[in-house]
């Protein structure tokens, strides 16, 4: 199977922050959620994929092509949504249409206007009068109107209310129905990603902590609630992280160690996994 994104050994060093040896593979036809706390390196990684900033070392391939050598060709097939719109706000949706029509070979005016209609965005209203939700919807409309095969979204759903977020997630569902289409979406709203993603990649302090299919991930980990005594008797290899409260201990554990034991465990959510990893990492 061909990969939509293939990142190997990617590094980028700043004074206060370093992205170290990132490896990410997004198979074609899948949605990957890219999670991590603010400042973990999500946006830096996305900017490197888009060659907006320069990598120090490593390799990035999009649709099997080098992201720098074949940049222009690749970008015809990528739709990007940033957390901001980044258009001059004196412009309106028709202006955006006129500009993008002259940039993307496969720009589809009817499709774009269809999205504007669907999202009830007035064609002639200047962007400065938009709500945040409308700006995001315009950005998404633009990203979907040039027959892109890969959507890259950086915090596209943050700052939006649950109703709008749900609407937008539905659009992504529609998009991914085509098996040639893929989505790479970063967010710190983990619950959104848990709903739609096939793969989860978790970045923490510039390093990839884990990157695998969501189902595997949710099977691999479990939440254990027990007394402090019980916890003491537990094989420490089974524990990823724990916190003690007045009722006992809550811990993220590997499910395989729990089989056939007398502990009761709950399903772990992606958010649990992220929180326990971050806390444990900070303690070490």
């Amino acid at each position, binding site marked *: 199977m061909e990969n939509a994104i293939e990142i190997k050994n990617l590094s980028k060093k700043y004074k206060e922050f370093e992205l170290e040896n990132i490896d990410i593979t997004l198979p074609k036809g899948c949605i990957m959620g890219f999670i991590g706390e603010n400042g973990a390196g999500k946006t830096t990684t996305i*900017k490197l994929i*888009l*060659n*907006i*900033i*320069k990598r120090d070392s490593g390799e990035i391939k999009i649709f099997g092509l080098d992201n720098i050598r074949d*940049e*222009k*060709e690749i*970008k*015809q097939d*990528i739709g*990007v949504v*940033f957390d*901001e*719109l*980044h*258009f*001059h*706000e*004196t*412009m309106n949706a028709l*202006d955006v249409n*006129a*500009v*993008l*029509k*002259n*940039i*993307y*070979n496969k720009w589809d005016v009817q499709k774009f206007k269809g999205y504007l209609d669907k999202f009830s965005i007035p064609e002639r209203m200047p962007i400065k009068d938009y709500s945040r939700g409308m700006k995001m919807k315009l950005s998404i409309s633009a990203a979907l109107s040039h027959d892109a095969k890969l959507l890259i979204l950086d915090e596209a759903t943050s700052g939006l209310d649950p109703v709008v977020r749900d609407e937008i997630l539905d659009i992504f569902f529609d998009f991914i129905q085509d098996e040639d289409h893929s989505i790479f979406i970063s967010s710190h709203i983990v619950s959104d990603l848990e709903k739609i993603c096939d793969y989860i990649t978790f970045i923490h302090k510039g390093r990839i902590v884990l990157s695998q299919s969501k189902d595997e991930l949710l099977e691999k980990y479990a939440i254990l609630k027990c007394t402090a005594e019980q916890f003491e008797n537990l094989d420490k290899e089974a524990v990823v992280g724990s916190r003690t409260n007045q009722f006992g201990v809550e811990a993220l554990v590997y499910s395989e160690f729990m089989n056939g034991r007398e502990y009761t465990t709950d399903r772990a959510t992606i958010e649990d996994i992220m929180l326990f990893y971050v806390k444990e990492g900070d303690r070490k």
Partner: protein
Amino acid sequence: MKGLILKDFLAAKKQGRVLLLLIVFYAVYAALSKSTDVFWGISGFLCIILLSSSMSYDEYYKWDKRALSMPIKRSEVVISKFIFGIIVSLVSVLLTIGIVAVFGQEDLQDIILSAVGILSVAVVFISVIIPATYKFGMEKGRVIMMALFVIPMIGLLIFSRSNIAAPELEEIGRYISFFPIAAVVILVVSVLLSIRIYNNKEF
């Protein structure tokens, strides 16, 4: 590239309207006072304002981040900015020629001299503003722009106070063919320099 230039015009349409209004106002002023000299300076000034405000809004809205996420080469971003500046200057000078021809008393030779002179100066200004803004950002770029206006004025002031005789118009006319040549050389160097600066920028 066409999309980028179009974006600059669409984004500036509001300021463009204000500037057109200003031009109409000065045209009326010129018609009433029969004096069109001041007009040349104003037209040059207006294109610089449009260009630098286009660049400062680019910076404010982080437009470059969006532009570079699209199928556009970095050099295209830079070159389109120059083309925008030059088109604006041409339009502005053509408008001025029209107004001066209708309301003014200058003869054809004077008009051509002034037009070539102003266009050359505008090109030099564009060639300074674009690389300076890419290199130093809009805030410091503005200081450089002010210097562009102030230094020649001080120069002129010193020149007029000194006892050197002002050259005759014919004498300037003899050298004026060098103006556009010099401006084009500066322009080419500036484009190359700007692309170099822009290639190393991160957004």
